[in-house]
């Protein structure tokens, strides 16, 4: 049996649990909706504008940086576990990798991608 089958079984049970609880939320509990209760929570005052509108582009920048750096981090892992066998070759490889990671890093730093004031 492949190693991954137990993982899938646990995932299946976890999914079943999540669905079960979600269904239970519709069964128990009183259901007395009123327009006020169903209005969006706004600390008791009237809402001025709906929330789905433009938001700061910073969040998008962070998301893009995450994709770049996290893919690089994931690509380092296979190199990391082979480091003992690759010895000097592996170290040089990692240095090249680190430079490729660090140069754009300082570039985006200078461009102000990490500044949130």
């Amino acid at each position: 049996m492949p190693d991954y089958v137990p993982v899938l079984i646990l995932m299946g049970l976890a999914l079943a649990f999540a669905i079960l609880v979600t269904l239970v939320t519709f069964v128990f509990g009183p259901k007395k909706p009123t327009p006020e209760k169903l209005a969006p929570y706004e600390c008791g005052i009237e809402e001025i504008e709906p929330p789905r509108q433009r938001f700061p582009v910073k969040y998008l920048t962070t998301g893009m940086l995450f994709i770049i750096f996290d893919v690089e981090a994931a690509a380092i892992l296979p190199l990391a576990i082979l480091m003992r066998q690759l010895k000097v070759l592996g170290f040089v490889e990692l240095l090249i990798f680190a430079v490729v990671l660090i140069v754009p890093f300082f570039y985006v730093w200078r461009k102000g991608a990490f500044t949130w004031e």
Partner: protein
Amino acid sequence: MDATLVAIIAAVVKSAIVIAALLTIFAYMTLIERRVLARFQRRVGPNRAGPFGLLQPLADGMKMAFKEQIIPTRARRLVFVIAPSISVFVALAAFAVVPLGSPTAWGSSPTARAWAPLVADVNVGILYILALSSLAVYGIVLGGWSSGNHYSLLGALRSAAQMVSYEVSIGLAIAGVLMFAGTLSMVGIVQAQVQQGIWFILAQPLGFILYFIAATAEVNRAPFDLPEAEQELVAGYLTEFSGLRWSLYQMSEYINMITAASVAATLFFGGWTLGGLDGIPGIPFVWYTIKVAVVLFVFIWMRATLPRIRYDQLMRLGWQLLLPLAVLNLVVTAAVVAFDVPWWISTIFSLIVLAIGGIVYYVRRRRVEPSAQPSDEALRLALPTSVRLVRIDSSASAATARQPAEVSPN
């Protein structure tokens, strides 16, 4: 019975046990956290339901189940309903590869191995946990976005940016451990620590601290609990959720915390082993539990001690401090492993970095504090009358209390 059938039955039983155990631990973690926090604040905490308040989680759960489940009119109904389940599904599934004991505990025949105290010994174990913990952001973002509320949306956006930022640091911080271990399998990492005769925290103190900070941010715990910052965002992405749907989010937060603690215990503290004291069946599980409990206690301790940091500080810490330090740690560890020098070289390096960090922090604090500290006069004007009176009272009583001690020399 053939081996495959046994293996499947074993997997189902073990998965059910893991899920039940995680849910129980979640329930009691809420109680323990409230009691411990209360002690930190010189209160008693919940102690009415059952002895020592032990039935409190049960009472909470019942109450949650029978609360009205509000779906606001502006919510996107389908996404709003399934978002909490995504969170909890991901949190539960991530625990599959955490070893609670040696896989050869019951012998090495296929049947015995099927009952090993972990759900699956996957050879990409730690990568699997990283992958699933990145998915956790979906539950939060979808929940916040679908609520149709300003606070929820802001909380969700903050949370997304925060979790992805610290995800990078986690990946790079544990790469140092993986170099020493030479494997991604959680079991393999523990066995590597036994083989090399050290816990990897000894070789990687810096890596551990980076991992711990990033993991705290990843599971949205104080002082990084900005997605649910009460003072500014009501409850962040949780604002519109009520009853069991709200519980599901709490559940996933606590289970993620347990997983983060388990990863810390496995990668840095030797998992289920302790010296040679893990030969007896059942004992490894005790060591594992103790280690995880200590890490979980530190999570609660940090919540009681540290004030929440600002959002720009959070992003600066994650990108401008943790990430470069993680890369530095990676390069030095790579040198130590590749040139086969003793492991304590990387320890010395880590300690030097930590000492420099400590000195920089101390100097900066010394420089900032005099101006940040308001004068007594300014303080007196800024405070309301009642507080002023209390302050004067307490300083007066402190003065009188001090006097007798000064008079009597012996």
